[in-house]
């Protein structure tokens, strides 16, 4: 999988990077490194509540190429509400095969009968490096024993787990389908019990729990909904350094948003490289 990405780095990225000035990120010493941007948080197909300008996979990938995004970890919007999760993951895997940038991240819903088989297919059949969970839409909490069981199985299978802590601001949700943000407070204790587990929290806007989460090994974050002009810099200083990964939450959010926020954050080259791809490699390879 990484070889394919590296090919892209030389073929696609250099052109796009040149267009947006990305090459200036790298000093001469770093020039031999492939210029990569790994977006760890995108979704394919249609958002259930409105059409999005980039919700066709071809359009989305085209946009990523213009922005220099070389790899994108793709979940499926279908995974939020559909119950035929095996079908959801099959469509996701097939679509990702069409675009070398896309890495499929399958959905698993532990409230469904035989969810273990969905996990097995993600790993064995589709060769997915991770899975994505939507506890708030699927109706369970992280204190549920099923989540602990899922975390154990995912860890054993050597795949990382993404938890979408929130998909949409609760203030703007459809009035007939309101879900709270995922309560992440049980996570640190669970991670201690599952020492080798790797969990990325998506769309998280740091709150009073952040310090505890950041101190917990194995927990990663993404940048998609981090706010305030110095929000990313504060997360790095607050202990998320080598566990903060670039994410756009596209196509629900405009992908330029996370890129500009990265630029805005005045990171040095080492921080930038970690954020844009090194940390993503770490969660896959460690």
């Amino acid at each position, binding site marked *: 999988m990484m070889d394919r990405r590296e090919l892209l780095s030389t073929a696609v990225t250099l052109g796009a990077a040149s267009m947006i*000035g*990305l090459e200036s990120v790298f000093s001469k010493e770093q020039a031999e490194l492939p210029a990569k941007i790994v977006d760890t948080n995108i979704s394919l197909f249609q958002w259930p509540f409105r059409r*999005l300008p980039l919700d066709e996979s071809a359009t989305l990938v085209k946009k990523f190429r213009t922005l220099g995004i070389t790899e994108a970890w793709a979940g499926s919007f279908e995974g939020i509400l559909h119950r035929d999760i095996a079908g959801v993951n099959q469509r996701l895997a097939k679509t990702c095969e069409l675009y070398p940038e896309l890495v499929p991240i399958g959905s698993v819903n532990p409230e469904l009968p035989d969810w273990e088989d969905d996990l097995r297919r993600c790993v064995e059949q589709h060769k997915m490096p991770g899975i994505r969970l939507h506890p708030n839409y699927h109706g369970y909490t992280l204190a549920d024993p099923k989540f602990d069981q899922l975390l154990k199985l995912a860890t054993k299978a050597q795949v990382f787990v993404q938890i979408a802590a929130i998909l949409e601001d609760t203030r*703007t949700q*459809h009035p007939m389908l*309101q879900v709270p943000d995922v309560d992440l407070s049980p996570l640190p204790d669970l991670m201690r019990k599952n020492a080798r587990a790797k969990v990325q929290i998506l769309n998280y806007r740091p709150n009073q729990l952040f310090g505890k989460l950041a101190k917990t090994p194995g927990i990663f974050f993404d940048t998609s909904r981090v706010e*305030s002009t110095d929000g990313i810099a504060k997360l790095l200083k607050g202990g998320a350094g080598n566990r903060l990964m670039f994410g756009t939450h596209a196509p629900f959010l405009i992908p330029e948003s996370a890129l*500009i*926020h990265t630029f805005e954050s*005045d990171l040095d080259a080492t921080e930038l490289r970690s954020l844009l791809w090194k940390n993503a490699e770490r969660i896959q390879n460690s």
Partner: protein
Amino acid sequence: MNRAATQFGLPKPETLKRYRIWDSYFTPSHSHPGSDGSSRLIADIERTLPTIEKGHFEKLCYFPHVGIGTTNDAELEKTLRSRPEIILKPLHRWPKLLLGMIQLNANNLNGSLDALDRWLRDGPMLGVYFPGGGPGAMTCTHKNFNPLVERIAKYKGVIVQHTWYKTGGKQGPGESTPAELAELAARFPNQKFICAHAGGEWERGIRAVQNVSNILIETSGFDATAGFIEMGLREVGAERIVFGSHLPSRSLGTELGKIVGVEMTERERRLVLGENFRKLLNQILQKKDS
């Protein structure tokens, strides 16, 4: 220093300069300027300066408290009334960068009318901001708004009304929705109103104001949700959309990203990023220059 001089996702600096960005919604220390009336506000503006430079903003409009009960801090309110020169500190420090519009308190009608005389007619302020929360919030359909809007119109001031449509209902009784602003705006067809945040839940917000031509929608205060600007362009047109940054509590990424990341003509982008706001301010700026 090994800083990354990249322009991820942003247009080139010369393009940003060409847009002549005038930010209609700059919110440093929006709810409280600091107990001395300015220190926290000044510090928040200083904290934002690097971002302002990166975005190549030309002007930013902020909303000072002027001692008419828009905060819950009685001591601060007293200080602002007794030492009004404190209120002008940011404008004196950054005269070329900042514009000001006072926060009004429609619950305090007489105090607000006096403040309009003092700060719009006789002072440097260019308009007003009606808050959505705190002690100054009042639903904008209330009759107290009539004399206030009449006086603001007399001074050619600009009106910014905080609006939200929140799933589950209003956060407080004084919050206003875009539909309520539409009701107020219909009473004053010759006065322009800025519908701040386009209602937050903008699909309903835009619908609520689309047929009220004297309302413009403002773009800040919610996530960079895709499709917002597209719907705005389709339903109200670029001439009725004004850019707001909500800095520093929001980010350049979230707010400028909404405008530069969307397909629209360069003409439309210039309108949204500055020209429309300048046009709204034109009359009062001319009046103050004369």
